[in-house]
């Protein structure tokens, strides 16, 4: 059973695209993806409170969607209440967008939100652009599983070094597309530290899927990557 940890739904202002829930479902059906963790584009572009409500609405209407809450430290004031109520409202994961919002893990606002995120106990997905050095100092306090999302070959060395020392750090496969990269992470840390993610509908889904399917690993290793690891994480949450 394939579960995509990283999908985006909603209106897209930067060019003309169909990021509707229906379009995502069609893509999931085409590629045999059973479930997708979704965020509303409004939540990371404009208003995370409204956007998170939009995400919950879509997930309420479609059981194959799993809701992901977005927190935007730029607005700060409403973040603690949104974080504290996330689990109770049904969110399964937090996802942060410092790359799109222009902040980093050493920002004072984010620093103040870390205890609340730890208390909430939901896994957290972040891109490497959050600043890996600053993130490394926050990982022990965060305690919850943290998924590095969109690690490319030029960020991989730092990500591997962090994974050696932080047992709660995982990686998604969305940009892990060098030959042997999936195999390497799998061998070093086990398939339980890798989760499939595509970035659809901003990205295609097939390249990320093909990369995992193409990896020279056993089927017993592939299954956790394509869904088992994430289901286990979300189940714990």
């Amino acid at each position, binding site marked *: 059973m394939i579960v995509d940890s990283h999908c985006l739904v909603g209106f897209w202002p930067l*060019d003309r*695209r169909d990021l509707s829930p229906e379009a995502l479902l069609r*893509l999931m059906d085409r590629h045999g993806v059973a479930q997708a963790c979704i965020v509303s584009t409004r939540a990371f572009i404009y208003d995370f409170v409204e956007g998170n409500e939009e995400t919950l609405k879509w997930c309420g209407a479609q059981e194959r969607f799993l809701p992901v809450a977005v927190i935007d430290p730029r607005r700060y004031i409403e973040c603690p209440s949104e974080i504290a109520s996330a689990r109770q409202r049904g969110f399964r994961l937090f996802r942060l967008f410092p790359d799109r919002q222009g902040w980093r893990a050493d920002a004072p606002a984010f620093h103040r939100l870390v205890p609340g995120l730890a208390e909430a106990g939901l896994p957290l997905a972040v891109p490497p652009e959050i600043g890996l050095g600053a993130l490394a100092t926050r990982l022990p306090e965060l305690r919850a599983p943290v998924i590095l999302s969109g690690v*490319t*070959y*030029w960020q*991989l*060395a730092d990500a*591997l070094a962090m994974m050696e020392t932080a047992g709660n750090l995982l990686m998604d496969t969305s*940009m892990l*597309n*060098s*030959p*042997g*990269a999936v*195999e*390497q992470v799998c061998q070093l840390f086990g398939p339980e530290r890798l989760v499939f993610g*595509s*970035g*659809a*509908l*901003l*990205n*295609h*889904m*097939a*390249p*990320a*899927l*093909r*990369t995992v*399917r*193409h990896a020279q690993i056993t089927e017993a290793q592939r299954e956790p990557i394509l869904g088992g690891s994430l289901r286990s994480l979300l189940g714990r949450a």
Partner: protein
Amino acid sequence: MRGKGIIDTHGHLGEWFFPIPRYSLDEVDAILARCDIELCIFSSALAVMHDFREGNAWLKHAIAGRQRMAGYVTINPHYPDESRADLDAYLPLPDFLGVKYHTHYTNSRADSPLALKLLEDVQQRGVPILLHASAGQIANVAKALPDLRLIMPHFTLLAGPEASLLAGLPNVWVDFSGTDSHWGRVSEAVELLGHQRVLFGSDVTLIDPARALGMVDDADLTAEQRECILRRNAVDLFGLAKA
């Protein structure tokens, strides 16, 4: 060429300064076979990133006798005489099908007088060039040297206005190699340039060809467009039908 497999016009052989496994030539061959790639045209990673002469010499031996591998001669405009010497040495060999020039790793501009003079020489030799440069530079070179056949890699990374600089240039082809998988970029390239001018380029061994194959899987292509992108355009551009 007798086969019907994919032709990958963008590969690199050799080591990287990233945590990418060191593959033997046999292992690279196996990666190509798994992706049904009948032929991949490689530059030497050493030639692109550091010493082009040493890298070109290594590549000649690396690809010799390997059915799935052909080569690009890498040039560096800071060394025009040495670049011409390598063009003389390798282009007559059947394994070398074109030229590679990377502006980033040579800290140069493709439309500078220095580079244009060297590219004029490439034009006279009648082989395609895989030119890693901005769309603006590619457009300037394409206009200055209308008989030079240019391949622009990494179309997926171009923003819309930059991509549009390539429209209407009859001597420019693009590939969609790169790390990202932005939605719709293969279809956009087809719309902008026509499907006859889009090539399958993967960036192997930096990027797994499975990624580029996935881009084709998800693109809304006709069977004719797919066949052209995966194979026929490269056969025509590199004159492989005669091989």
